[in-house]
């Protein structure tokens, strides 16, 4: 069965610091990859997704992620975080097709002034 590992449980950064959140998955076949964000009290929102093509994917709010197939990784990055980026971030993977997403346990990001 697929699994998704998010290495950091809680990350605390100062405003303007750079962010990288790790995500590794276990499935060896063709995958679709996603990052979702959940702001306090709100529903899960899609940040970005990778299906095929350019492995560097740009999403909303200045986030990007790089798919490295050889490392089974899809790390999320942002060059300069803002206080409003404080949220929970979830990496998710699925085999190609409309199959269920498998989520990681999430990484809580706290951005302090």
């Amino acid at each position, binding site marked *: 069965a697929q699994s*998704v590992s*998010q290495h950091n449980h809680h990350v605390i950064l100062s405003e303007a610091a750079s962010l990288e959140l790790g995500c590794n998955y276990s499935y060896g076949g063709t995958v*679709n990859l*996603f990052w*979702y964000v959940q702001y306090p009290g*709100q*529903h*899960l*929102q*899609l940040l970005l*997704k990778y*299906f095929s093509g350019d492995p560097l994917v740009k999403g909303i709010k200045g986030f990007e992620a790089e798919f490295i197939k050889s490392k089974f990784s899809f790390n999320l990055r942002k060059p300069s975080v803002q206080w409003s980026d404080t949220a929970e971030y*979830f990496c*998710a993977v*699925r085999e190609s*097709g*409309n*199959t*269920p*997403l*498998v*989520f*990681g*346990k*999430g990484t809580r990001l706290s951005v302090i002034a």
Partner: protein
Amino acid sequence: GAGVSQSPRYKVAKRGQDVALRCDPISGHVSLFWYQQALGQGPEFLTYFQNEAQLDKSGLPSDRFFAERPEGSVSTLKIQRTQQEDSAVYLCASSPVTPGLHFGNGTRLTVT
């Protein structure tokens, strides 16, 4: 455009009670998914519908959990004889034919 709507937003049930959680997906979305999110965890897959057909229910934790989508739109997740370990946020998501999940706000179930 309305998103995925779930009701109730909060539900408190006494242990042993039955509960029914409702999901109104985005109109026209073929696929509908239910997930369970325990505190401090990521969402865990429960079940999946394509139109009215339940294609995968491998994630349902016990036979106390039952989901239906009789007309291929609204879905109901029913939990019979609730237990404390059922306390979680239950998320519904819908998707058009091309993949991309849209999540609702969830129903927070607390079993006392």
